[in-house]
């Protein structure tokens, strides 16, 4: 088995461009310099190397053939280096790793995103809206710290025009903000989806995921129809190092996307 097949060898990818999305977050578009990695599915992640700094896991926020768009928030040395990577420079990429979102072919769809959690859900929204006629109600609920922390507000307006019900709320409104204020769970009752027939996708901080999933179950959305993207420290991406272990799951293999009926008992265990 080759290193490429096992996902242990980073391949060179060229930075096509980076674009600021918020004051500390940027979208980075990559294309293979040579041999491409296998195609990524929405929800899967890559290990991305800033040479000389290190590597971090990043979920794909768009896939266009072998061209990848990743969203990186600058919180440390590696993410800072990637956020500021110059067009034309080279980074290393391993992947694709983990499970992707299981997007249904029809029915109602509810997407709930908190903060940068919107990035991995973006391909789900785009896939659903590309075949909008096949689906019933499509709702996208977005929560963020403040208005300036909202990812791609222009694109979310396009989603609205394409037939999704997009609702946005912020924790800390700024002067001039005329939208909702509060946590994203307070928007659930305005989603207008039928709970029993809804496929729900949730990504964001873990506390927000737990609160959202509980509220959805309380509203009769079946737990197995709620998919959540979990965060633990990803390192090898191949299930060997154990850094991402959550109980019996190695999230780099069995996650990051996990159905809520499987995630719920694990997330209620302290220190797990």
């Amino acid at each position: 088995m080759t290193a490429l097949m096992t996902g242990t060898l980073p391949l060179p990818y060229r930075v096509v461009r980076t674009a600021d999305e918020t004051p500390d977050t940027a979208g980075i578009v990559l294309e293979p310099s040579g041999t491409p990695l296998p195609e990524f599915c929405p929800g899967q992640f890559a290990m991305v190397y800033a040479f000389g700094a290190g590597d971090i896991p990043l979920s794909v926020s768009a896939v266009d053939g072998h061209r990848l768009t990743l969203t990186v928030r600058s919180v440390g040395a590696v993410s800072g280096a990637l956020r500021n990577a110059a067009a034309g420079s080279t980074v290393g990429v391993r992947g694709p790793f983990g499970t992707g979102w299981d997007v249904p072919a029809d029915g109602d769809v509810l997407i709930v995103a908190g903060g940068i959690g919107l990035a991995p859900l973006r391909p789900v929204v785009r896939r659903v809206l590309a075949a909008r006629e096949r689906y019933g109600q499509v709702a996208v609920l977005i929560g963020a710290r403040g208005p300036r922390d909202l990812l791609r507000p222009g694109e979310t307006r396009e989603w609205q025009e394409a037939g999704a019900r997009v609702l946005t709320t912020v924790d800390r409104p700024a002067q001039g903000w005329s939208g909702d204020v509060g946590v994203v769970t307070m928007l659930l009752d305005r989603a207008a989806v039928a709970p029993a027939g809804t496929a729900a996708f949730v990504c964001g901080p873990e506390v927000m995921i737990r609160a959202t999933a509980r509220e959805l179950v309380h509203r009769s959305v079946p737990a197995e129809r709620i998919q959540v993207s979990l965060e633990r420290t990803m390192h090898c991406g191949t299930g060997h190092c154990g850094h991402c272990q959550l109980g019996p799951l190695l999230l780099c293999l069995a996650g990051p996307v996990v159905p809520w009926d499987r995630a719920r008992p694990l997330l209620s265990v302290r220190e797990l």
Partner: protein
Amino acid sequence: MTTAGQQFLGALSAAHRDRLLAFARDRSFPAGARVFDEDAEALRFWILRSGLVALDAQVPGQGSVVMETLGPGELLGWSWLFEPYRWHLGAQVREPVEAYEFDAPPVRAAIEEDPAFGLELTRCVASVAIGRRLRACRIRLLDLYGVPHVPSEGSPA
């Protein structure tokens, strides 16, 4: 996930919902209307059918600071149910509102006269309005979307 206006009312049994709605009248507010002010006497309450209302507080040097917004199906005001019957926050309409409006004194009298109705309505206010908003407030206190206190670069986002 509920029909507008049903979120709060939907938590009541049909009989008690009908009893409450017997006190209701239709009310509209235009955008920008002031519904009530902090510390004023809480003489009415509303169940929103459409629109958006901001709950706010006056903060010296910052003016009116919005704490939370309420949308269709939600109860606007619970201070009318508990002493001293004065508003803890103010309320201003952000998007034009259609609502059921209730005078508080006759509803409070009905609660005293009919313990079963009173218990269910009080439970509903406590669980659907106060409890839910308390949970939401506690989550916001965590400032989940802020920069991690211990920056971790090991989680895909």
